[in-house]
């Protein structure tokens, strides 16, 4: 009896601590909601407001006046969606080759790819900027899309996935049926690795949506920026004047991300730890 009581008490304590953790995780979101529903003068007042106010629509109006919110959101969506599809295609194609075929130079090429994985981004930032300035991409979305269209992480990830998921017998059978390389990739490999693709796709989308440093320097024209850059400009130039509006912007910028996450949460959380424990 005593031990049942003890374990019940321990279980309550456990959940109480975990719920406290959840509240801390969620609090900044709550805080952003509160701030986005108040006017600046209310935000500056003391004690701080802890319940929603009534200025949300007004803040939204100010936000849309200050920046081209939907324009920059469209730019972000365009880049994130395009890059995601390109990455899924190029990475899975290369991963299929590395996972299932033998060819001269395979080991060297794979090792080279893993080495590239380790090179920090800022080593490439200046020359990338210079190269793109020379070919006239600076200021356009191309500068964001093309360099991101294939990456080492994704190839590595999909290769691990394909190695186990696609059985050699299946490929051999399809070969006997006369399927060429592309048919094998498209009709045999891809359907099997759909969960791996989902993980990579969601991760790529979120990474692109949130990317900040490169768009900040590559998109020189202030009328043609991604949402993250537009938001930071809002913070820099209007930060002290209209906090309610800035918060509204920060909050609205999270909506597409949260939608994508909600769709793929199961996949992400299930697969996240795999890379660490392999």
């Amino acid at each position, binding site marked *: 009896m005593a031990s049942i009581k003890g374990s019940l008490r321990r279980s309550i304590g*456990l*959940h109480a601590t*975990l719920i406290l*953790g959840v509240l801390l*995780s*969620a609090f*900044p*979101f709550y*805080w*952003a909601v509160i701030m986005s529903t108040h006017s600046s003068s209310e935000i*500056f007042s*003391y004690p*701080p407001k802890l319940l929603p106010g009534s200025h949300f629509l007004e803040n939204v109006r100010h936000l849309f006046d200050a920046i081209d919110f939907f324009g920059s959101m469209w730019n972000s969506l365009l880049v994130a969606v395009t890059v995601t599809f390109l990455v899924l295609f190029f*990475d899975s194609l290369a991963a*299929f080759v*590395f996972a*299932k*075929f033998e*060819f*001269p130079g395979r080991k060297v*090429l794979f090792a080279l*790819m893993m080495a*590239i994985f380790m090179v*920090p981004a*800022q*080593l*490439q*930032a*200046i*020359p990338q900027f210079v*190269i793109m300035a020379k070919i006239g991409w600076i200021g356009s979305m191309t500068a964001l899309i*093309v*360099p991101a269209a*294939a*990456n080492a992480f994704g190839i590595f990830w999909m290769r691990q996935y394909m190695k186990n998921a696609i059985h*050699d017998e299946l490929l*051999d059978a399809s070969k006997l049926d006369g399927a*060429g*390389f592309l048919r094998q990739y498209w009709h045999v490999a891809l359907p099997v690795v759909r969960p791996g693709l989902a993980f990579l796709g969601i991760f790529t989308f979120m990474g692109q949506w*949130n990317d*900040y*440093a490169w768009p900040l*320097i590559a998109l020189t024209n202030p009328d043609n920026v991604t949402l*993250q850059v537009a*938001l*930071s400009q809002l*913070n*820099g130039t209007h930060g002290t004047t209209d*906090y309610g509006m800035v*918060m509204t*912007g*920060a909050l609205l*910028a999270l909506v597409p*991300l949260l939608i994508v996450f909600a769709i793929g949460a199961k996949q*992400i*959380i299930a697969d*996240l*730890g795999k890379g*660490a*424990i392999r």
Partner: protein
Amino acid sequence: MATAPALEKPPLTVAEPPAARPRKGILKYWRLYAAISPFYLLFLAFGLIPVGFSLYLSFHRWDGLGSMEWAGLAQYKYLLADSDFWNAIGNTIIIWALATFPMIFLAMVTAVMLNSAVRFKNLYRFAFFLPNVTSVVAVAIIFGSVFSTNFGLVNALLHAVGVDQVAWLNTPWGIKVAIATLMTWQWTGYNAIIFLAGLQTIPTELYEAARMDGAGPVQTFFRVTLPLMRPVLLFVLVVSTVTGLQSFSEPQVLLQTTANDSTFSGGPGHAGQTMVLYFFQQTFDNNDFGYGAAVAWGIFLVVVLFSIINWRLVQRRDED
């Protein structure tokens, strides 16, 4: 199908039908090379050439527009004596440490609790992972208001318990604490889920054996859990070192409103200027591309050094 049944099944490899190889050479693999070529072409154009060019650039003086001027080792000599760069290294390491150690501790505690709590596990994982889904820009804006001097929530709380308000984003350590808090908040849940994945690979028999031997929960953690978790711990430490030492967006967004000279200055007294912020300031604000390239290589060295040190520390615990 009609071939004679062999005694031992020959290994089946798809791309190497035994006959053709010597005659056609590597040309018959053209489909495979074509399939992996996009990555290598992109890498060549936007990876290898840039990295080589940045090395070349670091031995020159260049404002990005005019002609390049050979400088030899001058940039690197200057870098070694550059107190601003050393300040940035110090800031980065302090912020990294302030964020990483609480983060790993909290993540481990969370993971252990999640591993034992049977109910609502997925719900908790979802909730804990949420901070990592957000954009750094949005989060930095939100944290900027939480730590704001005049109307920030932290100061309001301090006021409520009778403590004087702190100018968080105006004092050297306040800036670092604010940035580190943001990073801890954003990454604790992510790492907790990675730790949890590691914990779930530990066989329950080990725990039962430890309980049989009379080990308490704390003893069990240090004697059973922690040693088996070392590979995962190493992974988390290395990833957080590589990403933490390259932090840019957090201090840039958080401190650009209080910056007076440059949006990359890292707040008053450069107290929040990380290495990468310094790199951006030198390169794109001062238009000193040659020196910027040298700074980038300096950052690279620091990150590599630090990763090796971390690796060694965790590995050595293995031998004890």
